[in-house]
């Protein structure tokens, strides 16, 4: 289960606050995954006291609203990433960035499909730069795209370009994954699916033996 409580002293109307929170939740908590199980209790409550003395925000279509949105996105993404980083049994955070999609929502769906893949997660734990599993998870995201436009990179190492597998330094790619695991760091997976403007991110973690151990012992 994930819970969140967010507070601000910005001054904002109820309707705008609820919309800003909705957007931020979609860009953060709804873009994380550890084990694919959606809890009965997931909940975020966000309260705005309004006592900072700032300009009251009445509309989404103003500079101040965009500022507040960006700040709330940052706070919620920071918290969301820390949940994925702390995933049960995890040795590293996985950050999937998708660009070139038709829109933000489709990019987000591609990203989460990859972050959710048990086989991608297990490959990361196994320090296996398995571009095939990543490509597979992009393919079943439920969004149409041209596979010849698919690019995949692991950190700065290009694994697939224009739908074609590339020759890459397998040892270096594996070392990149190993180093992230040994330092509980971040594995970056960059994916491009076309030439459009939609981009999005999702966060997950690797899948280790400890995940099963923890949940075999945590009774429901």
């Amino acid at each position, binding site marked *: *289960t*994930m*819970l*969140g*409580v967010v*507070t*601000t*002293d*910005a001054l904002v109307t*109820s309707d705008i*606050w609820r919309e*800003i*929170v*909705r957007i931020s*939740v979609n860009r953060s*908590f*709804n873009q*994380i*995954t*550890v*084990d694919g*199980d959606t*809890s*009965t*209790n*997931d*909940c*975020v*409550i*966000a*309260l*705005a*006291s*309004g*006592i*900072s*003395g*700032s*300009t009251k925000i009445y509309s989404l279509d103003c500079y*101040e609203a965009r*500022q*507040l949105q*960006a*700040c709330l996105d*940052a*706070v919620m993404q*920071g*918290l969301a990433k*820390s*949940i994925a980083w*702390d995933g*049960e*049994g995890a040795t590293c*955070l996985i950050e999937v960035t998708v660009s070139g999609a038709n829109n933000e929502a489709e990019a987000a769906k591609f990203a989460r499909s990859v972050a959710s893949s048990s086989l991608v997660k297990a490959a990361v734990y196994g320090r296996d730069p398995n571009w095939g599993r990543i490509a597979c998870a992009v393919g079943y995201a439920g969004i149409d795209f041209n596979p010849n436009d698919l690019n995949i990179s692991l950190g700065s190492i290009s694994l697939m370009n224009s739908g074609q597998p590339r020759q890459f330094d397998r040892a270096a790619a594996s070392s990149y994954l190993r180093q992230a695991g040994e330092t509980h760091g971040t594995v970056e997976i960059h994916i491009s699916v076309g030439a459009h403007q939609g981009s999005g991110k999702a966060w997950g973690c690797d899948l280790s033996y400890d*995940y099963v*151990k*923890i949940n075999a012992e*945590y*009774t*429901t």
Partner: protein
Amino acid sequence: VRSDMGIDSNHIPAAPILLPEGPWTQIAGGVTAAKGFKAAGIYGGLRAKGEKPDLALVTCDVDAVSAGAFTKNIVAAAPITYCRKVLDASSLARAVLINAGQANAATGDAGYQDTIECANAVAELLRLSPEAVFIQSTGVIGQRIKKEALLNSLPKLMGSLSSTVEGGDSAAVAITTTDLVSKSVAIETKIGGTPIRIGGMAKGSGMIHPNMA
């Protein structure tokens, strides 16, 4: 796992917060960083094992504009159903009570009644209307909350409320379950030239694939 890592069961370290870069400054604290908010976390005897804090409260000195996102899981816990109704009934709120240990999910009408009684108790002690109080629960699914322990702990919890960083940190620890780290962050920026703050806390480690609306 925590035992294997040699971590004290009553206190857990803070998570490294990977905050995106932008026109803001990360500051100390979490839910208490913004003006008007207090928080506390205490051990209320709800957890099955250990004495790590398990009961948290966040309050606002004034009526705060409220928003919420809730799991779309059709088998939603009693606090989720309750909070949806609160959010529908009012655009303002003053408090969030959170317990760790029992999720109060799949507990039927009795579990829902427990949630109402907890919200009413908080409202009464803080002299608020029940619609101003949100409830969150986390822990073992299928178990009702240890209501008597919770209700008996409320006076101490309210006496511990603080607007300090420590108040926010104690609340962030109290909401954890299998988490190995607590999650708390705050930033400051300017809106229209006026400094504003946003802070938050979260918990989560397993059963994580949120789909909230």
